């Protein structure tokens, strides 16, 4: 069982659904307040969707300087899994833990509806239970969802297989290369704009998002099978 810290910022509003999504997948999920500096031996960290600090200046620009973010960055540096959903993705970009930035939707409107995405890579802690090329229906709910990166960075993401999810059919926000989610070079930090926690049970209209959370537990099981155990909140070879 993974210990999953769900960070709560002033303005987060998907924190409860995200914690419940992780719990439904079998994780020991709990909240960490943005002023905390200790992730309490988290195996994985999720920055949930919603808003943060009014998203003044730019979405995520002020949240990235929250006291908790130093611990999140350190967790990421040590290879710990980190997932940013929507506003969490924006915060990870602002913090420099992911490349690029998220700008105002090309057609300005706040969009809240299901979209189709294709799973491009499965070698991240958050996508390993999907099939490569599998198409999902997952809701988006964002005003600032247009992923941009300079051409060199975008080409690098493509070449290194770091585009995790891509919009198919229609691109709702005008993002570069139809990007809906990316990961860092170490592949442990993932950011996605759609909300898997809003599609993880039949009662929510589908279960396409559930494997994001289940993947983490599968990852954990695999690591245990490989003779790895958690020490002080981090994985270490026996």
């Amino acid at each position: 069982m993974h210990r999953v810290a769900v960070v709560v910022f002033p303005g987060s509003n998907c924190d409860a659904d995200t914690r419940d999504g992780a719990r439904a997948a079998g994780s020991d999920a709990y909240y960490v307040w943005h002023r905390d500096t200790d992730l309490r031996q988290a195996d994985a960290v999720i920055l949930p969707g919603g808003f943060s600090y009014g998203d003044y200046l730019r979405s995520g620009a002020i949240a990235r300087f929250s006291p908790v973010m130093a611990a999140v960055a350190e967790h990421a540096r040590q290879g710990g899994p980190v997932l940013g959903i929507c506003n969490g993705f924006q915060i990870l970009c602002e913090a420099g833990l992911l490349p690029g930035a998220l700008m105002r939707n090309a057609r300005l409107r706040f969009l809240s509806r299901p979209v189709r995405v294709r799973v491009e890579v499965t070698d991240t802690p958050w996508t390993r239970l999907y099939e490569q090329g599998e198409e999902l229906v997952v809701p988006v709910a964002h005003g600032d969802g247009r992923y941009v990166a300079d051409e060199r960075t975008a080409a690098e993401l493509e070449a290194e297989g770091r585009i995790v999810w891509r919009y198919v059919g229609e691109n709702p926000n005008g993002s570069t290369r139809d990007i809906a989610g990316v990961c860092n070079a170490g592949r442990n930090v993932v950011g996605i704009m759609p909300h898997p926690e809003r599609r993880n049970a039949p009662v929510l209209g589908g279960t396409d998002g559930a494997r994001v959370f289940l993947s983490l537990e599968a990852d954990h099981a695999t690591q245990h099978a490989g003779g790895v155990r958690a020490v002080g909140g981090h994985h270490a070879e026996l």
Partner: protein
Amino acid sequence: MASFRVEIRVMPRASLLDPQGQAVGHALHALGFAEVGEVRVGKHIVVRLEAPTRDEATARARSMCERLLANPVTEDYQLLVEAA
């Protein structure tokens, strides 16, 4: 120490789509301002600060822009520093 007033202009990078600017441009056309070409919308931030010299005030303001006030991926900024 002296007081300075720094005006900071943050603009979306020219190569990037600025839908807000486009929407404002369309509204100006709708009002009959047919002469309007491209419109871009940015931010104007005014910071008052204390510094020993104007150069130091400029350096500090530049650091604020790079760390917080502008996003280096999507925005450019300009500074105007004057004695307050």
